[in-house]
């Protein structure tokens, strides 16, 4: 079975290699090949999953060492794969959702002449993401981490002829670099502290190391958090995700909702032992999570672009996961559980949004939609189920996973627990509000369509079956996953051997939390109903309050970055250049000039006249003789 793990990664990698180098002769079969190889990877994942289920809970880890990648003295980086329950969960999510989105893209990208290249990039992404979650050491994980960053860059900028897409790709890449620096510094710190990159060498020793080198372990935790912030679009590195919606919608669904952006949650959960040993870093993690879940939710409320509203929602939901991961052993399992259910319903929502755009001439402004439920019944139902799942409607996926996270937040205990729990409840209410808003503005109310710039009247129609089938399957996932995971706490039992799990001592009972969540849900839906269903939606956005206007501009994140980082950086570099010119160059040039001037004067002594040399010799001898005599006399 171990050998299959390598194939899992190799299959999509092979696809990427063939599709990206094969040239135009593959144009007619490229998308089928890419989908097939993704499906192969999924089939291998299922086979490994079945094999894993057949073993005892404590004996499920598989390990496969391929070769030593960088052997230099004491520095050793291996290419080795580790498949345990945590990796397995990700493998199934990545290959499963990935395959569905490949199928969806066959229909969605049908009219794009660069479809083969698109599938090559998608396969490249799958390979890199699988490498990330299967690596058995941080060095290889970093390779996967950079690989998904590259694939994300290529896919956001896939329509590179649009300047906005090219800029968004660059922005995503650059912001991710900041996080990547955190990861690389973290890995270097781990190597100097533990002398190895392997999870097996580092994680079991983290607790022990924190007693002697507490500051270092905390530093590693902060660096890993920075990395997670970059990749998972958490405050303060969140600004790239909204713009990343410039990419094709399947990309937004796969990379910027279901899988890649959750890599930060994976990193924190995988490095749980380090965070458990560094409480300060954990506090930072929950703070980042709580701030982001409110930040993303508020941004999601104000956006009229359907994809950007969903992007705000993604940011907010990942905030929930990061917060849960920061709670320690009481939260890891629920972070991953929400990650999986979110993978289903958010991918489904994005695919639904893509289907709507497909039928509406690529219009993204929700103020130009309205009443689409009659024209796109399948999209309406699948999107609606995803909507019910994300707001936590009882019985659907989001209800189980989000409720558990809110419970865990209260269970953190003390004032911290109350603050986190209330943030999470408030976030749930806002989630219900903005998702209801999206739902009503898109599918209910009267038609607000207008002809596009070329005068084409939109003719909303249902998408082809290659697009609707993945949406239907994901809708099933959105409905059922949470319930399946919760029967007998099966998901907790499944992940517990890897991440550890403890029931917190919650000051409020589970029933109270559920009731609170329901109240939050009703309030959110009710306000949205009153604002958007009882009244007609204006086709042009009203001016709105100060908060609305700020949220439309992503709560001024770009303005903040511009003023603080861009301007600040400019001023800093300018002053450094000035300092360099005046001080450093001044010292160097001054020394050179004074030496030059002095030697110019000394040079005049070397005039070539023998007699002048003779005078200086005579004078020197006279001085020497006089000095000798004087010394004698004294």
């Amino acid at each position: 079975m171990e050998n299959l793990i390598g194939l899992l990664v190799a299959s999509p990698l092979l696809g990427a290699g063939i599709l990206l180098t094969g040239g135009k002769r593959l144009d007619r079969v490229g998308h089928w090949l890419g989908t097939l190889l993704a499906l192969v990877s999924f089939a291998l994942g299922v086979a490994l999953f079945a094999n894993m289920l057949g073993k005892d809970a404590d004996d499920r880890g598989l390990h496969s060492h391929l070769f030593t990648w960088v052997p230099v003295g004491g520095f050793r980086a291996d290419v080795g794969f580790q498949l345990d329950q945590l990796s397995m969960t990700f493998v199934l999510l990545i290959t499963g959702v990935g395959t569905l989105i490949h199928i969806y893209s066959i229909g969605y990208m049908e009219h794009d002449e660069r479809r083969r290249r698109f599938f090559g990039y998608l396969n490249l992404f799958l390979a890199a993401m699988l490498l990330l979650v299967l690596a058995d050491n941080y060095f290889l994980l970093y390779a996967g981490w950079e690989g998904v960053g590259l694939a994300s860059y290529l896919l956001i900028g896939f329509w590179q002829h649009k300047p906005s897409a090219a800029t968004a790709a660059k922005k995503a890449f650059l912001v991710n670099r900041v996080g990547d620096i955190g990861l690389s510094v973290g890995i270097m710190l781990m190597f100097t502290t533990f002398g190895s990159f392997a999870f097996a060498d580092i994680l079991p020793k983290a607790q022990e190391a924190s007693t002697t080198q507490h500051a270092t372990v905390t530093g590693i935790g902060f660096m890993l958090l920075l990395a997670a912030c970059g990749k998972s679009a958490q405050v303060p590195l969140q600004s790239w995700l909204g713009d990343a919606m410039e990419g094709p919608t399947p990309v937004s669904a796969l990379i910027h909702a279901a899988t890649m952006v959750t890599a930060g949650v994976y990193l924190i959960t995988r490095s749980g032992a380090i965070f458990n040993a560094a409480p300060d870093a954990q506090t930072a993690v929950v703070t980042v999570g709580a701030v982001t879940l409110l930040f993303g939710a508020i941004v999601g409320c104000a956006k009229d672009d359907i994809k950007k509203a969903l992007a705000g929602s993604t940011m907010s939901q990942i905030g929930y996961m990061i917060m849960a991961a920061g709670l320690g052993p009481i939260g890891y399992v629920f972070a991953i559980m929400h990650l999986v259910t979110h993978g289903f319903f958010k991918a489904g929502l994005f695919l639904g949004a893509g289907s709507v755009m497909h039928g509406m001439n690529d219009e993204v402004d929700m103020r130009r939609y309205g009443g689409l439920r009659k024209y796109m019944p399948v999209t309406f139902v699948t999107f609606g189920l995803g909507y019910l799942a994300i707001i936590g409607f009882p019985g659907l996926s989001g209800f189980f996973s989000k409720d558990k996270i809110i419970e865990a937040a209260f269970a953190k205990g003390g004032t911290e627990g109350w603050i986190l729990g209330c943030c999470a409840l408030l976030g749930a209410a806002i989630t219900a509000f903005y998702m209801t808003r999206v739902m009503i503005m898109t599918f209910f109310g009267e038609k607000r369509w207008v002809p596009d710039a070329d005068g084409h009247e939109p003719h909303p129609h249902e998408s082809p079956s290659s697009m609707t089938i993945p949406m239907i399957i994901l809708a099933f996932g959105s409905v059922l996953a949470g319930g399946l995971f919760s029967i007998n706490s099966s998901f907790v039992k499944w992940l517990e051997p890897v991440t550890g799990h403890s029931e917190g001592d919650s000051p409020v009972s589970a029933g109270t939390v559920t009731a609170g969540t329901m109240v939050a849900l009703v309030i959110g839906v009710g306000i949205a109903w009153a604002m958007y269903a009882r009244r007609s939606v204006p086709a042009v956005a009203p001016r709105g309050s100060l908060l609305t206007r700020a949220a439309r501009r992503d709560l001024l994140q770009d303005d903040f970055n511009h003023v603080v980082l861009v301007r600040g950086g400019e001023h800093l570099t300018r002053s450094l250049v000035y300092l360099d010119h005046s001080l450093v160059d001044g010292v160097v040039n001054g020394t050179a000039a004074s030496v030059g001037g002095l030697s110019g004067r000394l040079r005049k002594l070397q005039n070539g006249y023998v007699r002048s040399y003779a005078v200086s010799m005579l004078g020197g001898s006279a001085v020497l003789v006089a000095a000798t005599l004087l010394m004698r006399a004294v």
Partner: protein
Amino acid sequence: MNPANYLYLSALLFTIGAAGVLIRRNAIVVFMCVELMLNACNLAFVTFSRLHGNLDGQVIAFFTMVVAAAEVVVGLAIIVSIFRSRHSASVDDANLMKL
């Protein structure tokens, strides 16, 4: 006769030689002035040898003569070759060794 008189003569000859070296331009004359200085030193050595009653000064005078002979050989050869190439025996004309 008072030995100090020899020393006065020696100092006088040395001064004349040194002044000649510094003032005259003709290489041959400068050369002769150098010889004059050397011989003034020889005179002083011999005088001191006589004063102190040992032979050290005389031995050194012989050494000086040997050095002077060697110096004449080399020095005259240089002067002749400079004269051949530059058609002048003036020391001020041979002033190429400068920055």
